[in-house]
């Protein structure tokens, strides 16, 4: 838990995490519709490894994951205010994104795949911590 990252590096970590999450979903969707070639399998594996590494170094080792998943009784009043603000923002972002995705899948008449659903659940858990990185100015470790 002593792993420290500057705010700038954390922001890069968030961008890498979301890009790898998106690429995992897109590669899976493409492979499902077209066919699973060897290159596609390698790409899927690489994006999954990048995703796991970026989550570990940006969220888990910095304590951000714990911070947004702690019981409210273990937070002080500034932390409660900060998590409340980040959760409110995350809820807005997440609900708009899910609405757009559901509308797209409904209009395109495509079935929802399990990777997309799992990614959305993961995204919902990562979003509050990601928003905090943008809200906090000085903190290197939560």
């Amino acid at each position, binding site marked *: 838990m002593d792993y420290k990252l500057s705010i700038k590096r954390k922001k890069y970590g968030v961008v890498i995490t979301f890009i790898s999450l998106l690429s995992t979903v897109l590669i899976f969707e493409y492979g499902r519709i077209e066919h699973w070639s060897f290159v596609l399998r390698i790409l899927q594996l690489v994006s999954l490894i990048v995703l796991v590494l970026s989550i570990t170094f940006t969220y888990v080792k910095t304590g951000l994951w714990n911070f947004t998943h702690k019981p409210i009784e273990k937070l*002080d*009043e*500034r932390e409660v205010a900060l998590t409340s603000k980040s959760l409110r923002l995350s809820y807005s972002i997440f609900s708009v994104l899910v609405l757009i995705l559901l509308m797209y899948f409904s209009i395109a008449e495509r079935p929802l795949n399990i990777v997309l659903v799992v990614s959305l659940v993961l995204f919902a858990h990562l979003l509050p911590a990601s928003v905090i990185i943008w809200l906090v*100015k*000085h903190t290197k470790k*939560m």
Partner: protein
Amino acid sequence: MKARKIYNRIELLRKEKSITRKELANKIGVNFQTIGYLEREEYNPSLDLAFRISEVFELPIEIIFSTKPFKPLSQLLIK
């Protein structure tokens, strides 16, 4: 409603008492990083937290917190 900025003398009083941010944080029951936010005046404490801080420094709240910037110590000493 946008909150007013609350100025404080926490850093000055803490250094005068020779206590670390961590020690002060333990005494008032917050994360030590919250002390940094308070000292930089980036976070306005609740009334409860303000009272806890005033109890630690054994000073009235109005000596520690103000809605107007505090005058530098040198100016106060000249008066």
